[in-house]
């Protein structure tokens, strides 16, 4: 157990000093702020004639207020923030192969399972902090808008906040472990990122779209896809959107709440298990 703690501390030491990790967090925060607050608020300020058209100014403003924090934070998790989490996982695990540092780590002391366990724990901590940052900055923006517009600052109940945070963490952890698994299996960074992003942004949407329209026979397949379950889990904990405000891309109700949560957790467990299995049996050349 001490060795796992040592590895986790070493990995966190590396992670906080890695510029790429901060870049990913910055991009996630900027996108979350732009789509969750800046664009809706500019549309409201423009009398409903801004970048979002078709919704009333009041609904646009309501979508940026504190009671929508969970929805605005989770809105991007099934797609763009998920893709960024996948990149994070691929970056953290794949680059050990690219730089050849895995052999340096594996000849220090801890065994392979211990090393991988510590790396996964460190990644989970990084994801947890990233999700927290997005929630906190969302709360800051929502509060600022409420103060400026002199609107009610009614916060979600603590339990709703916790559920939202937990769901967000689970979704982002799933994407990150998928990226990590690809990094371990392909022993690379570029290929996992390329394949993962194409899957998240392209293939999943294509399958979900086709399954929902012309090929309903594909619905069982659609319902086990990571993005669809992430969108369903996000939908389960998001508050009702103001009238005329569409759900963010990827947020869906295709899968029931409990099933979505279990599927997301299954992805995490299976990805970690497969990565451990592959890591244990392979030669490090």
């Amino acid at each position: 157990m001490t060795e796992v703690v040592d590895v986790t501390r070493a990995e966190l030491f590396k992670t906080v000093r890695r510029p790429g990790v901060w870049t990913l967090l910055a991009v996630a925060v900027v996108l979350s702020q732009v789509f969750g607050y800046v664009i809706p608020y500019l549309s409201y300020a423009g009398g409903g004639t801004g970048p979002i058209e078709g919704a009333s100014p009041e609904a646009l403003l309501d979508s940026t207020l504190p009671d929508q924090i969970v929805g605005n934070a989770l809105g991007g998790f099934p797609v763009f923030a998920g893709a960024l989490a996948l990149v994070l996982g691929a970056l953290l695990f794949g680059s050990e192969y690219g730089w050849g540092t895995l052999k340096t780590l594996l000849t220090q002391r801890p065994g392979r399972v211990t090393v991988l366990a510590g790396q996964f724990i460190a990644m989970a901590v990084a994801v947890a902090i990233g999700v927290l940052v997005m929630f906190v900055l969302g709360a800051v923006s929502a509060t600022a808008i409420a103060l400026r517009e002199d609107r009610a600052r009614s916060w979600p109940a603590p339990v709703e906040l916790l559920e939202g945070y937990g769901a967000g963490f689970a979704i982002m952890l799933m994407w990150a472990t998928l990226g990590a698994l690809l990094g371990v299996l392909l022993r690379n960074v570029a290929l996992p990122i390329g394949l993962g992003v194409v899957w998240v942004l392209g293939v999943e949407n294509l399958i979900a779209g086709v399954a929902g329209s012309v090929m309903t026979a594909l619905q069982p397949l659609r319902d086990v896809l990571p993005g669809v379950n992430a969108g369903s889990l996000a939908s389960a904990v998001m508050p009702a959107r103001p009238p005329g405000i569409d759900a963010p891309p990827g947020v869906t109700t295709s899968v029931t709440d409990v099933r979505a949560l279990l599927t997301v957790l299954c992805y995490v467990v299976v990805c970690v298990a497969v990565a451990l299995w592959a890591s244990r049996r392979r030669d490090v050349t």
Partner: protein
Amino acid sequence: MSAVVVTRNLTKAYGDTAVVDRVSLSVHRGEVYGFLGPNGAGKTTTLRMLLGLIRPTSGDATVLGRRPGDPAALARVGSMIEGPAFYPYLSGHDNLAVMGRYAGVGTRTVQASLEAVDLASRGGDKVSTYSLGMKQRLGVAAALLKEPDVVVLDEPTNGLDPAGIREMRALIRRLGNSGRTVILSSHMLGEVQQVCDRVGVIASGRVVAENTVDELRGDSHVVLRATPSDVVTVTLAGLDVEALPAVDGHFELEIDEHRTGEAIRALVLAGVDIREVRRVDRQLEDVFFEVTEEAVSHD
């Protein structure tokens, strides 16, 4: 003398090709052991198996009495395998801090390790700004972090300038003198001859010789320049001394050191005009080519 590393018929095959073929060797406590062989001979693969990075196809090995890769053994083994590998976005110091945490020794030995390889003044700089030689030295510093009983260094002088090579060899010798066991892989014969107590020569995946450097080099010989050649040949034959055929009055004599005086006296009394007599030590290079060529010719 107890062996800290033992391999028995250690083999690694990829498909039908054995890159390491039934390697049996032993490294004794406190010695500097040279693992000598040309590029592609199987040195690095053997070392990777000793560290648990590669699983052998057959055969077995023990390191400090444990199976390769056992955490208890790794805790006492420092290594640098096939070039240094570090995180380019971290400084040299921080890279060692990461490795120290992994090794369970924290950061207490980081500064001393940097000083041991003369990198203390650049420890705060990012590794991405290091030259190949500096990275190589950082790799050796990482191998010393655990204050290990056994140090495994794979081609540690690669990329170093002449001064760096000299310092590295002195460092390796110091490690040996401090009671540590050092396994040094190299294709540089002079390097191995200078710093190693014993040598294992590997060619085409097989160990073709294992002995002390002196034993491998064998007896020295005498170079004699003298005329007339026919008198030299007859006189030496009378003493039962083997003389390789003369070229322009040059002879190579296989003769024990204590009989050299007797042979020279006989040649002088026979009226031979002697212009030069000198004893030449056999170089490891000569032995190396002999044993590796024999191994290749037997394939």
